[in-house]
């Protein structure tokens, strides 16, 4: 936080410095995000956060004296576009690093290409976890960070009977697996588990199945606009059960978009949302709104993107201005690449190249106001490292899941 105030205070100074910074070649950063199509709602903020960070960093003299130049393409929520543009930024625009991707499918689409060209990509998104790839740095939260906090807390408060409804794809399946395991470890019982195909928007039967099973709370891991219709339908059928989620509010700001009280009594673990009531968060939000007054909401992915820019700056500067991937990974391997950002202190884990987070438990009230009953500091992305992924030693370029872990040598 002190850093940002200093920056603001020394704006004039920074502008003067920037004159010299222009002398060096700029550092090119590719940005591939979905500014149109299905995912636009949650991702436009990421691009804005990157633009905000770029402006700040450039005003403060750039990265190691070099200005940042953004190369932005709209990937239209289309996997093919990711493939086309990932090749373009790496081969034609010759960017130093890429910030790319919202959906896991888009990440998997571009990852082989990043590997082919041996580039470096930041994936600034909460996801199902498990990517063990030296070409990737992930700043979003992963299931162990969100569920090892959320589920035991919920079970303590609302009892041990748990019902999961999850989107029937990778994120939902893997998250549900995490929930199942954590419920079992804590002596609870899964009274139901239902996977909803993507694009399904009608939930009458599901709502009845839940009523029949009588759980203490429902874990909702629904994804996409169609599935989000569940909340409205559950409220109108007067289901009245508390909900736990890792994906709502923090990403798609459903509490702002839906009519109260459809999301009331939902508990979400997120690593940032704009309601977070710390001075760092407020300062970040103020800067964001100063630059983008019409921004509908600043979500966790926006914060993660902003943090990622600053982490990248730090790594390059500590590598004496080198943008080579191996030099940066040597810095990363020291294990102390950390940043005091809008969500508190975060650090990159050298083994998995994922990021630790402050996890906020957000509760949605009747009028869709947000309160924070609990905050956990410094929750580490432990699973990949424990399971045997160690990028400081080997680079398998793979994505693992709890049921499909790395084979131990």
């Amino acid at each position: 936080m002190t850093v940002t105030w200093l920056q603001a205070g020394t704006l004039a100074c920074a502008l003067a410095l920037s004159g010299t910074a222009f002398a060096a070649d700029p550092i090119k950063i590719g940005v591939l995000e979905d500014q149109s199509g299905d995912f636009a709602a949650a991702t436009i903020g990421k691009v804005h956060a990157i633009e905000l960070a770029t402006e700040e960093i450039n005003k403060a003299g750039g990265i190691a004296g070099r200005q940042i130049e953004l190369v932005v393409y709209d990937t239209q929520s289309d996997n093919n576009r990711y493939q086309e543009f990932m090749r373009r930024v790496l081969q034609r625009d010759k960017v130093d690093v890429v910030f790319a991707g919202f959906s896991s499918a888009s990440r998997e689409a571009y990852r082989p290409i990043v590997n082919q060209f041996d580039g470096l990509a930041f994936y600034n998104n909460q996801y199902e976890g498990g990517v063990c790839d030296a070409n990737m740095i992930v700043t979003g939260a992963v299931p162990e960070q969100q569920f090892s906090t959320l589920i035991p807390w919920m079970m303590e408060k609302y009892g041990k009977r748990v019902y999961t409804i999850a989107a029937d794809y990778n994120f939902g399946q893997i998250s549900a697996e995490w929930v199942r395991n954590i419920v079992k470890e804590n002596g609870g019982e899964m009274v139901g588990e239902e996977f909803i195909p993507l694009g399904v928007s009608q939930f009458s039967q599901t709502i009845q199945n839940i009523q029949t099973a009588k759980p203490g709370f429902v874990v909702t891991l629904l994804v996409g606009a169609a599935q989000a219709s569940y909340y409205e339908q559950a409220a109108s059928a007067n289901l009245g059960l508390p909900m736990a989620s890792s994906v709502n509010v923090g990403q798609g700001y459903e509490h702002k978009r839906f009519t109260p009280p459809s999301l009331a009594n939902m508990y979400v673990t997120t690593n940032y949302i704009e309601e977070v009531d710390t001075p760092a968060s407020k300062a970040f939000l103020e800067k964001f709104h100063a630059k983008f007054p019409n921004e509908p909401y600043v979500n966790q992915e926006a914060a993660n993107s902003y943090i990622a820019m600053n982490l990248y700056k730090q790594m390059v500067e500590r590598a004496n201005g080198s943008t080579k991937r191996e030099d940066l990974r040597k810095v990363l391997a020291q294990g102390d690449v950390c940043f005091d950002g809008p969500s508190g202190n975060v650090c990159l884990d050298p083994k998995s190249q994922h990021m630790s987070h402050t996890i906020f438990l957000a509760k949605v009230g009747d009028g869709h106001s947000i309160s924070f009953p609990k905050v956990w500091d410094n929750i580490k992305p432990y699973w990949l490292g424990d399971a045997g992924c160690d990028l400081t030693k080997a680079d398998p370029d793979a994505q693992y899941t709890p049921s499909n872990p790395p084979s131990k040598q």
Partner: protein
Amino acid sequence: MEFVTAIVSSAYQFGDAFAFLVLSACGLAVIFGMMGVINLAHGEFIMCGAYMTVFAVNWGLPLPLAILCGSLFAGLVGMIIERVVVRRLYARPLDSILATWGVSLIASQGTLILFGPTMRGVGTPLGSFMVGALSFSYYRLVLIATALAVLLLLYLVFNKTRFGVLARATIQAPHMANALGVDTNRVYAFTFGIGAALAGLTGGIYAPTMTMIPTMGTTFIMEAFVTVVVGGADVFLGTAPAAALLAVVKASLTSWQGQLAGQIGLLLAVILVIRLLPKGITGFILKDRA
């Protein structure tokens, strides 16, 4: 009591699935069945009706009027598109697929540009009722009633009104109808408008239960096409039994094995129907007449 609950629950689920299939498909079926045009902008008409409904509610109209408003607006847009684009393509039905696809691209991205990636919806009205230990939403009953009303209305319009008779005549023998002094262009425009308005109605009536985004129409598309395929070309003969058949399949499988089974069941039903009744249920009913 438990028995009653089970009966009510099954009926409710069947009705809910039936309503969704009928309402998804009816606009598409009218335009396809009556005009032989596959309208790939069907989802966008649904979206259009939904957005208009939400706007109307925000202007202070009560929900039923707002839905009507959404439906009429979608119908109007449909007639304009028919006039500007589709009309020129009746001789080339395959090309109309492309044109309506183009329209759908423009509509969904245009909506994103104009109104942003998402919009606050309106809540579902009417609350819920209890049967045994289960609670149900009243609004779902409204959906079921609407589906039935739409089927009845379509039957009346196309079989009992002057317009309906003219429309059927025009579709079967355009030259003949023309020679008899029917303004065939107007008939086509109205038929397309009715299809679009039905899509708009679907959008409007489902708007309170769904998330408002520019691509919201796509969630209806698959069900719409499946129902039309199973139903065959004739809206009146095909759509209702097709929706009923599929609703039984979907509701029973969903309650038995979850949503995925329901979806797979739908697809298997389609494959079976293609194999056994290549011309859909219409073809089966019309077999003797062909």
